[in-house]
């Protein structure tokens, strides 16, 4: 957190009354004892029990009403919630910052499960655009196909589609793992900065275009490589991790991971300054 310092010499902006303070640093000191926090509880979350199960029919509800009801059920301690009749509604299950076992019996529309942090979700159908956008943690499994921008900008967690996905999968992703059992469209891994994408089938043109970092594993054919996406050697550590991850994803049980291609950033597009932003002590 920045320290605040009063400025005596007024700049033009300050004399105009726009601000009276300047940021001089980013250091914040917080002390805690590593032994005190073994409670597995995040402040502000609900203490739910996975064995406490309920069903929720959202046929006659709007998406905000359904999302509020999910929150209400979590506050009552329900750890497993089955959603009936989602009927392709958009923005269902967004913003769940809690551990939870959530099952959708049907398909979702656009932006399903966006901005979540922690839940385990199973969708027994298809999903539209931008499923699990900005996922922070947790696991989302889609039994059928997914639309474009699947897992856009995810930061963490596992996102699994057992079918095929559209274009721009994992666009701008900054962490986490996306696993696709079928094929993926064009511009998969576009501008990805970190994280991993596994595609067991074929992938379209411009794979990993302008990727800054991260890793893409492909089992099938590659349409074409994007700018600065290059091949890399598949190590034994990669293979061990791939086997483990596919087991977690419940797909590709007999898939030969040793024949997968590994694609990384060539790093020719890196235009970073010598220092990371966090190393700079100036105002941000």
């Amino acid at each position: 957190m920045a320290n605040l310092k009063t400025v005596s010499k007024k700049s033009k902006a300050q004399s105009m009354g726009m601000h009276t303070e300047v940021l001089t640093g980013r250091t914040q000191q917080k002390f805690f004892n590593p032994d005190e926090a073994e409670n597995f509880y995040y402040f502000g979350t609900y203490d739910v029990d996975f064995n406490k199960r309920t069903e929720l029919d959202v046929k006659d509800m709007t998406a905000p009403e359904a999302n509020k009801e999910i929150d209400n059920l979590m506050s009552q301690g329900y750890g497993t919630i089955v959603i009936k009749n989602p009927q392709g509604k958009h923005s269902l299950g967004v913003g769940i910052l809690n551990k939870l076992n959530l099952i959708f019996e049907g398909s979702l529309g656009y932006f399903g499960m966006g901005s979540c942090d922690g839940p385990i979700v199973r969708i027994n159908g298809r999903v539209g655009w931008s499923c699990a956008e900005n996922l922070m943690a947790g696991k989302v499994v889609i039994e059928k196909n997914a639309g474009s921008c699947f897992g856009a900008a995810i930061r963490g967690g596992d996102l699994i589609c057992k079918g095929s996905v559209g274009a721009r999968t994992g666009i701008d992703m900054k962490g986490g793992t996306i696993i696709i059992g079928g094929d993926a469209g064009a511009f998969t891994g576009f501008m990805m900065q970190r994280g991993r994408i596994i595609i067991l089938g074929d992938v379209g043109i411009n794979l990993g275009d302008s990727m800054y970092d991260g890793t893409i594993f492909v089992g099938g054919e590659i349409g074409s490589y994007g700018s600065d996406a290059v091949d890399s050697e598949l190590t034994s550590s990669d293979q061990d991790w791939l086997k483990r991850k596919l087991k977690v994803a419940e797909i590709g049980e007999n898939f030969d991971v040793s024949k997968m291609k590994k694609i990384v950033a060539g790093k020719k597009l890196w235009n970073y300054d010598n220092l990371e932003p966090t190393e700079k002590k100036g105002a941000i």
Partner: protein
Amino acid sequence: MAKKKGKKIVKAKVKEIKGQLGKKVETAREKMIGQSIGYRYDVNLLPDYSKLTPFLKKYIEAMGWDDLNWLEDVHMGYEEDRPAVFCRNANGWVTIPKSIKLPNNQQDRDMIARELLVKFQMSPKHPLVDLKKAYLKF
């Protein structure tokens, strides 16, 4: 006769910048692209699950996951020459207490970083606790 004053050779002080090319041992990649790579660790390093700590095993079980999940992207870095782990919720580095002795192996260090980060995030002293108390809307 007045003595001629010798010319003073003034050495300009060059401030060393951390991470600057030519000031450290560069990797082949850095030499090729002519830029310093600023990361403090290998962001693509995959976790070695044989190094899981008992605490992390309990955490995975409590969350209902099958593996480290989001913690796969957490590694031990450094902040001001001290070992540290980056907390994305607080948007800052959490320095490792001096009392914790760190092993030489990066995989072991990463597991310690993950454990410490989870404990920090669940601590009532985490900055997010104050923020939530002040700004939480629903």
